[in-house]
């Protein structure tokens, strides 16, 4: 079977920067997989996402359905890949239904008329996310959590095979974040969609992902299922943070707890390691 998404030796450095923002990154994603990407600020998570979207002129190869991403026209690409970023902030207030309809942009004719097919996908998106009742509301009259769900509905209406979530839960409280991630999981079950998602919150990544990719300074530091890659040493090495790892007794999900106690002992150990 051919790979769904294959990333080979992908590098990119921003203009006026001598360092590569991502450096010879390699990995593949299977169809139906949920991949979480974590790493400290500036480790290249967003740059990697932008490469997959062909928004920056990367070096290397990215193959999507065995086709080089750079050769896929933007409109065809947008039928296959949908993006949920940190927030959706239009300059004008719009009705929720108008925003969800926007997801059909790559499919509609020049004047944006909706076909029965378009309407079907809009209905599915509104129903799957339980926001049918918000349809006539104005976007900016909604709470932050509701807005992010409307944003997701727009991307559901777009009906992509691959969802890229770029820190989609970063501005949400725990309840709204849980709601969004559960809805994404439902989508994967129902449509066999694939998700690549970046996270700041390691615990969210751990609970959500089948596989985790850890990035550090533009390179893949480690990859594997959450239970194996999320270790105390890894967190310290990559983030420079002291923490404890505790497994959820119910399902084995790994959770990271930040240590705010006096860590002079740990520092002392570091010094010993360095000079021994």
């Amino acid at each position, binding site marked *: 079977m051919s790979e769904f998404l294959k990333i080979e030796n992908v590098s990119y450095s921003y203009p006026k920067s001598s360092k590569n923002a991502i450096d010879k990154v390699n990995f593949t994603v299977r169809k139906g997989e949920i991949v979480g990407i974590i790493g400290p600020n500036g480790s290249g998570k967003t740059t990697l996402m932008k490469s997959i979207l062909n928004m920056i002129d990367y070096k290397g190869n990215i193959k999507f359905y065995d086709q080089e991403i750079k050769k896929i026209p933007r409109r065809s690409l*947008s039928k296959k890949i*949908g993006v949920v970023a940190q927030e*959706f*902030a239009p300059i*004008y207030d719009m009705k929720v239904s*108008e925003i969800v309809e926007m997801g059909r942009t790559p499919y509609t004719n020049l004047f944006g008329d909706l076909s029965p097919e378009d309407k079907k996908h809009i209905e599915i998106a509104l129903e799957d996310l339980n926001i049918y009742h918000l349809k006539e509301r104005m976007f900016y009259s909604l709470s932050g959590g509701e807005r992010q769900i409307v944003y997701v509905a727009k991307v559901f209406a777009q009906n992509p095979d691959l969802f890229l979530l770029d820190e989609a839960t970063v501005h949400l409280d725990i309840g709204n974040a849980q709601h969004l991630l559960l809805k994404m999981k439902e989508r994967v079950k129902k449509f066999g969609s694939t998700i690549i998602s970046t996270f700041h919150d390691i615990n969210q990544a751990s609970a959500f992902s089948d596989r985790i990719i850890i990035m550090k300074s533009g390179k893949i530091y480690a990859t594997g299922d959450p239970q194996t890659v999320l270790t105390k040493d890894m967190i310290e090495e990559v983030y420079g943070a002291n923490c404890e790892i505790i497994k959820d007794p119910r399902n084995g999900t790994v959770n990271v707890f930040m240590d705010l106690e006096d860590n002079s002992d740990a520092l002392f150990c570091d010094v010993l390691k360095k000079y021994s």
Partner: protein
Amino acid sequence: MVKNSREGIFWITLPFILIFILANIAFGPVYIPVLEVFKALVGMKVPLTDKIIILQLRLPRILLGLGVGAALSVTGNAFQAMLKNPLADPYILGVSSGAAFGAILANVIAQLYYPNFVFYMWIFAFVFGLVATSLTYFVSRRGGKLPTTELILSGVIVNLMFGAGVTFLIVYGWRDVQVTSFWLLGSLSGAGWHDVILVGISSIASVVFFMSISKYLNAMVAGEEEAAYLGVNVEMMKLTIFVVGTLVTAIAVSTSGIIGFVGLIMPHMSRRLFGSDHKISMPASAILGGTFIVACDTVARSAFTPSEMPIGTITALIGAPIFIYILRRRVQNV
């Protein structure tokens, strides 16, 4: 197909707006009863002097106003979506003053050296309109974004610069300060049928064009990246809007001078009334912009007889407070 109630309201109000526009023909230095006006328009018998005033003087002037208002409003509307800034418009961005400078340059060259140059007036207006917008755009750009403050400030500078250029050219070339006010504050006086045809074609074409890209404009309202995720070729789209908008503005300016604030407040008003979907807000802002100019021109030509007030004065008197209102509201929202 009527999609929702807002679109319905638009189509219902349309005939009333058209009747209002035609009723403006009645007013001017000489009042002609409205009934008489409609009689003349449908070809019934009216006194010859009235007929000449209505069909040769006032009708072309009103149609020109309609076209100019529509062109400036749809351009403003498209610029606002493109730049993700509800305060953008051809006047604020300096397109209008750049275009006026170009038009006058062609006129001065025609007057002093080559009389044929007057036919290239709108091409000159187009070129200098492009120069002016590019200047505003690049001066205000900060890391791929156009912050409101920078955009307005650089627009002010570009406006002042080309405004000075206009005055200089007029005084140097014509030695006649009177025409300065025509160009800098706009006027529809002296409108002839050839102006109406040129502006009419360009403004109808621009409304149709901007309606046809309405779904892309809708997508751009949430930012360039979001638009790209939805399959929009953003750079290509921006360039097209930029060129088309500048072209229709240039044609409008070369027939009627700089008329400010229309392109700013009318799209805003149409979004308030009919929602922000560009498929409705484009034709709606065209109609509202046209009506606004026609109404302002009626005041300009009939309230101060025997002299005439430049129309830009009136649009500015109404537009400036609305501009301040939008700016204040925006600051509160951010």
